[in-house]
């Protein structure tokens, strides 16, 4: 490969960058999947909040340890129909079992834990972490009063 030609330089640059990315991926696999899960959950929350507003519908997020199930409330039959299931990749699990978030007409209307048990705190943090080591942790904080959520910046 000729380093002096522009094309050669670009090809070498891209190759080196690709190798760097692959090595970095294998070194920080856990962190990558943790970030990925939290990001996907955050974006799904936003997506369905907006959809519930646009369609005047209700959506429920049910978190079990290794997956998330999103259901849509069927008004005529009065049942929750499963809309989407998302299994967390890379052995990532969520800390709270059976944690539920409900969106109705564009608002977060309910946060419950277990079988419909209402959360009495002003906020709740849903942590995610790799199953084996339980670290690093990254979470999403849900505010009951304002009906909002935010991804926590620092990993613990």
């Amino acid at each position, binding site marked *: 490969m000729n380093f002096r030609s522009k094309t050669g330089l670009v090809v070498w640059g891209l190759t080196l960058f690709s190798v760097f990315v692959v090595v970095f991926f294998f070194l920080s696999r856990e*962190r*990558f999947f943790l970030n990925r899960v*939290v*990001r996907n959950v955050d974006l799904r929350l936003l997506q369905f909040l*907006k959809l519930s507003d646009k369609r005047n519908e209700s959506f429920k997020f049910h978190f079990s340890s290794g997956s998330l199930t999103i259901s849509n409330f069927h008004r005529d039959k009065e049942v929750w129909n499963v809309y989407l299931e998302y299994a967390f990749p890379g052995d990532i699990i969520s800390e709270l079992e059976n944690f539920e978030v409900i969106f109705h007409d564009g608002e977060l209307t309910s946060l419950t834990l277990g079988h419909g048990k209402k959360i009495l705190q002003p906020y709740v943090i849903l942590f995610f972490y790799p199953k084996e080591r339980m670290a690093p942790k990254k979470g999403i904080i849900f505010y009951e009063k304002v009906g909002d959520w935010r991804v926590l910046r620092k990993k613990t």
Partner: protein
Amino acid sequence: MRESRGKRTLRTILSAQGPFLAVLASGLITRIYLFLTVSPRIQTDSLTYLFLSDLTTMRTPGYSLFMEMLHFFNDLFSFTSNYFGLIVFVQVFFLGLGNSLLIYLFSKKLTGSRWFSMLVGIFYNCNYFILGFEFNILTELLATTLLLLTLLFYYQIFEGKKYAPYLAGILSALLLLTRPVFVVYFIALIGTTTLVHFRKIFKGSFLKTHAKGLTLFLILTLAGIGSWCMRNKIKFDYFGMSTVMPLQFRHYTKSFFHKYKMGEDVELDRFVAIYREEGLNTYNFQTRLEEEFNLTPVEFSRIYMKMNMRMIKDYPWDYIKQVPESAEYYYKNYSSYWMTPYNKKLLSKRDPISWTFHFFFQINTKLYRNLPSLLLMVLILPAIFLFLIRKKQKIFHFLFLIIITVNYNFAISVLATNSGIDNLRYRLPVEPLIVLVFLNALFVLVREIVVHLKRKNAHQDA
């Protein structure tokens, strides 16, 4: 006193790259100002691009791929938890700024003047309509960058650059995968080249020189189309780029759907009856068809397309008479709609930058909203420009490609839909080119007049 070496170097850089650096600086100033003021804008359409795995036959994957790529690096290197902020950052400081430099480069190619091109670049950096889209999670800005790059590299095929066919082909494929409106754009490009170099193609060595490059470009573009069509076929049993067309046509047919003639197609009549029962509401209509007839979204799209085409076929005049209004929505407006919550602040004249935005916003609004100036901008001056540079074949070819691009987008957008503000949105990818041609045409025209007058005076003096 002798000038120091540092000062000399600076002077050399400034004289050689001054205009380019001025465009870069103005772009950075306006964008940093906006980035600190404006939050990412998420529209309903934005939600449909968030997950690549969610894409149905309705959407093409270009923008989702772009977001997934950024998210991948963010997940890997843990840059930020502000996911939309990251996308907007890249859109503003890489795509948006890159577009302004491309516009500078295009202008330099067309006029040969670096200083005038600098003004065009600065004008672009103050274009509020375009800047607004840099903060929206929508396909338009990415499409603009891909369109400008496709044009540039396609043109470079004929300058004999070896890498050009590969890049032009890949970028053209990415472009049509980002906005399916560009699915037959490659035909427009090749058609324009054929028209411009008609004689050389049939009598000269044009084909011998450029056939390989053009074939490569064509193969790569077709590979882009084919790959997505195949994916749709395998996953949804639909061989096509997108099923979005009936959703566009419905805006046209809605106003005369009451004229639908029952009795010619029993199966279609049944669906039309449901469509009417649902008050011509597409979402409710689709939900009912999927629930009652167990139809897939692709099957629904086929039926909906058939219904719309039937209406256009049976009542062509009702369709045609709406086209001028659609064209008006497309052109005769300059809107701040996509930055609504920030307009008061950003167009307030409270500081030099918002004053600048306000000033250029007023100019653009006047240009687009007055019919004479609009016609001058999109029709008369481009035609004069083409005439003035008709003898410089290379630049003529480049300009013709740009003008065809602008009109291609216009024709497809206007004939496919008349959905109000969305029509204006469809203009965005070619907006930089419209402004570029207009300003360049003005400059070249004035330059020609000055040269002509000078010659005339010299002749009289002699």
